């Protein structure tokens, strides 16, 4: 077995799947220091990855979904075909709300500076709640260059999230 073949088996060997080539691989590792080092590095990385965080669902997650299903069924939501529920109907839609808030802010700034569609957009669209997703989707991402602070990405890392 040459180095190339040995290396192609490393990952399977970690999972105990090198099968009939296992003995040959082990013989090669015994004789070849370079492959031995390479395999050890792969094994170290594998162990590190195995110890990675397992995040936990937030508290009240299941109850929240059951509540949503119950209220949707009461209001006649049609379950059974597709999933395309509008965002504003979802509980916990914090990201959507932040996005909506941020986009309204960006739009407001653009309007004030007179640079955005000369206000035409606002005549045709009602920025209440339901249309904001559409407005958002219709906009170039270039308008969104002013990314929100990391506080959004880092929002609620709480103790309960780790398992």
């Amino acid at each position: 077995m040459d180095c190339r073949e040995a290396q192609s088996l490393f990952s399977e060997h970690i999972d105990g799947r090198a099968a009939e080539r296992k003995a040959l691989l082990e013989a090669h590792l015994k004789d070849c220091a370079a492959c031995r080092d390479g395999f050890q590095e792969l094994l170290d990385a594998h162990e590190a990855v195995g110890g990675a965080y397992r995040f936990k669902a937030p508290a009240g997650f299941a109850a929240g979904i059951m509540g949503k299903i119950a209220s949707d069924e009461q209001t006649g939501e049609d379950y059974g075909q597709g999933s395309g529920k509008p965002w504003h109907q979802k509980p916990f839609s914090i990201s959507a709300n932040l996005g909506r808030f941020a986009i309204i802010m960006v739009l407001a700034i653009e309007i004030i500076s007179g640079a955005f569609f000369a206000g035409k957009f606002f005549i045709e669209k009602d920025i209440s709640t339901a249309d904001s997703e559409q407005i958002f989707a219709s906009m170039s991402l270039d308008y969104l260059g002013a990314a929100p602070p990391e506080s959004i990405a880092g929002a609620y890392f709480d103790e309960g999230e780790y398992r």
Partner: protein
Amino acid sequence: MIDKNIDRLLVERFQKGDRSAFEEIICRHQDRIYNICRYMLINPSDAQDAAQEVFIKLYENLSGFSPSPYFSSWLYRIAFNTCIDHKRRPVHEYLNRASPDGDDFALDESSAPWPDKSLESKELNSAIFKAIAGLSEKLKTVILLKDIEGLSYEEIAEALDISMGTVKSRISRAREELKKALKDLREQY
């Protein structure tokens, strides 16, 4: 590991009209699904939205699910599809646009509950998260299922609808990339 027999019984109960079985299904799988969404989408609120959507989709489709030992593989498949859809939404790109210094990957230190609270350990844990989360979608999906969730090659092939050969080669490539990422990182410190 996931006890498949319990899933089968819960699905049967649900299909006979017992709604409480669905809540039990959520409770059994919510952490695994949330974790997948978290690694796929990085941002906690996106992960929560997506995980919720996964179970709503499950609810919509579960009555038509025929008994199979692959219930959890099927659920993982819904999760990956949901996350990939989620990523395509402009809102997601906006919220998750990585800051130049990569702070979006940083784990909040004030509430860090890792067992060993040394700075080194926190940095390592954060680096591992970053390395996994930074893989391409194809490689990330297999490595999450194999090395985080502990699925077999067969279960991964079923969940992602890819061949065993593809599972094998993607796991191998993912591990090589992680090895490189973690090595680069070690050299920084």
